């Protein structure tokens, strides 16, 4: 299938710019091709499509977790495909906030330590009083201000996902990516999580790209990208 082009307006330094993307797993038949995807700063995009069409793969490519065979993935003004693995990890820690449906919290750390985890895992981030303050503020904003010392095992599924959102946003990322972050949540918790992610995108001027199967959520996004559609991306 030919790569398509999706116009999303001006690509800014804080945006996402994908061109001529071609990805396939080694030894596998699955292929994902994407002619062009531009997401401007502060813009939100919902990614939809049938199961197995490559939505999660696209998020992983945007996050630099996977490396395309060909094409260019620029995030926050940096071409991920030209970076070494270690640099992509640093870029991910510094610039990208990731929320997954099953992005697990560590049961041996309390809520606050889970939110601050990126600071403990990457030497490029410094865990200082400002970071702690930001973590506490984020937790308070999602209604978990009184549970910062609780172990994740004593939280509800919705609360756990809100903690994961705080962890994704605590580094003030330039880009927010989500892979079905509301997949297991009831409507109330779902709305709280989406509010937090989209609200951050608007406030920080960060592009937000989120995979979702929930069609009720689509009107909340600026645009929708249907992976697998002719002219968008395809699994083959």
């Amino acid at each position, binding site marked *: 299938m030919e790569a398509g082009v999706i116009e999303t307006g001006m690509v800014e330094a804080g945006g996402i710019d994908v061109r001529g993307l071609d990805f396939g797993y080694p030894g596998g038949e699955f292929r994902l091709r994407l002619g062009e995807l531009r997401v401007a700063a502060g813009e939100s995009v919902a990614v939809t499509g049938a199961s197995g069409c490559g939505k999660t793969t696209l998020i992983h490519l945007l996050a630099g977790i996977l490396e395309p065979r060909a094409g260019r993935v620029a995030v926050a003004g940096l071409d991920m495909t030209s970076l070494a693995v270690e640099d992509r990890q640093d870029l*991910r820690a510094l610039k990208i906030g990731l929320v997954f449906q099953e*992005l*697990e919290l560590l049961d*041996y750390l309390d809520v606050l330590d889970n939110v601050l985890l990126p600071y403990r895992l990457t030497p490029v981030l410094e865990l200082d009083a400002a970071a702690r303050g930001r973590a506490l503020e984020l937790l308070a904003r999602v209604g978990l201000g009184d549970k910062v010392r609780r172990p994740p095992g004593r939280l509800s599924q919705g609360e756990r996902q809100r903690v994961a959102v705080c962890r994704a946003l605590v580094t003030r990322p330039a880009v927010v990516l989500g892979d079905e972050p509301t997949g297991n949540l009831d409507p109330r918790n779902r709305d709280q999580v989406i509010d937090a992610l989209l609200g951050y995108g608007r406030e920080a001027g960060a592009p937000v790209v989120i995979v979702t199967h929930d069609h009720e959520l689509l009107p909340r996004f600026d645009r929708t990208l249907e992976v697998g559609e002719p002219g968008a991306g395809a699994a083959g």
Partner: protein
Amino acid sequence: MSDVLYLASRYLRFHRGKTAVLVASIGLILFLPAALQVLARQGSQALRARAEATPLLLGAPGSAVDLTLAALYFRPPTRAATPYREVGRVAASGLARAIPLHLHFRPPTLAATPYREVGRVAASGLARAIPLHLRYDARGQRIVGTTPDYLEFRRLELAAGRRFALLGECVLGADAARALGATVGDHVLSSPAGAFDVAGSFPLEMPVAGVLAPSGTADDEAVLVDLKTAWVIAGLAHGHMDVTAPGAESGVLERREDEVVANASVLSYTRITPENLDSFHFHGDPDAFPVDAVVVVPRDRKSGVVLRGRYAEPGAGIRMVVPRAVVDDLVATLFSVKNAILAVSLGLGLATAATAALVFALSIRLRRRELVTLRRIGASRRRVRAVLATEVLLVVTAATLLAAGLTLLVSRLGASALGLLGS
């Protein structure tokens, strides 16, 4: 690094049960060979120290190990008695014949040496001879019959009182005084060797002349008496009322021209006092009286060699041993046993290490999702490995500290327990 340490320590603290089991099992497997090594070293040092301080020993032919252990640690030369009722019990079973053996005067483990050997060594001019008589005890504390020379030879200090000077007096080792609850001026009663042994070894009440300062050696547990006092306890000497005195007719069985035969009503003294001291006398030739070992202190090295040569001659009837050589043989045997135990410990250690490695490997597999999360958040592979390696390091460090603490404890306790083997 502090972040890696923080994450690793939080994980171990959260899984404290698993961590405790790992630390305990690794700690124990490190502790066992270490403690064995420490105890073996302390034991051999203690054994050797007292043996080195004792140049030569004389004793009856037989086991050199028995002679050495008896002389150095006052191990009783005889076996514990078995009540005669056991003979009847075996016979009554109808399953076997029971043949009793009474070996009190010829102990199977260490035969007596005649006292004349002490004089013979002294007469040679080559060495001092210090006799030891070890057959009796006072409520479990070994009565050591010897000469006052012994205290000087072992450099034993008095904490109270004075050395034994009169027949019947005793000097207590520090532990013996504590065990018997006695001090200077009290009396200690020797335990009878047999309740119905009419031939002698009746209980003798001994005044305590002195108490030794603790020495950390077998001397602490001894009740030191003059050799003649030990012979009194053995029944080789005794004192009784004067049957030749006027008014003692009731105790006379038969009066001959040159001797008086006393009857059973004659009162034997069980306590030696200034008033009855003169009535104590020996029956038989004191030169033939028994001693269990003789500590021989040569004048010089050459004198020692000459003496050893004399006693090595065929037909000498008495043997001379070098305690150091005997203990070296003993220690070599102990060390071969220790090495066998160490080999087993090594095997156990390898098995434990393999099990611990398996536990860690399975743990990593179970934590795969967590590790994937760390990588997605931005942790490098090296960082994740550092966290895992730090967890292992913390467990091994805690186990090593546990093993070191236990080994230190054992070395302290072992040192005090082995103290009685010291010089």
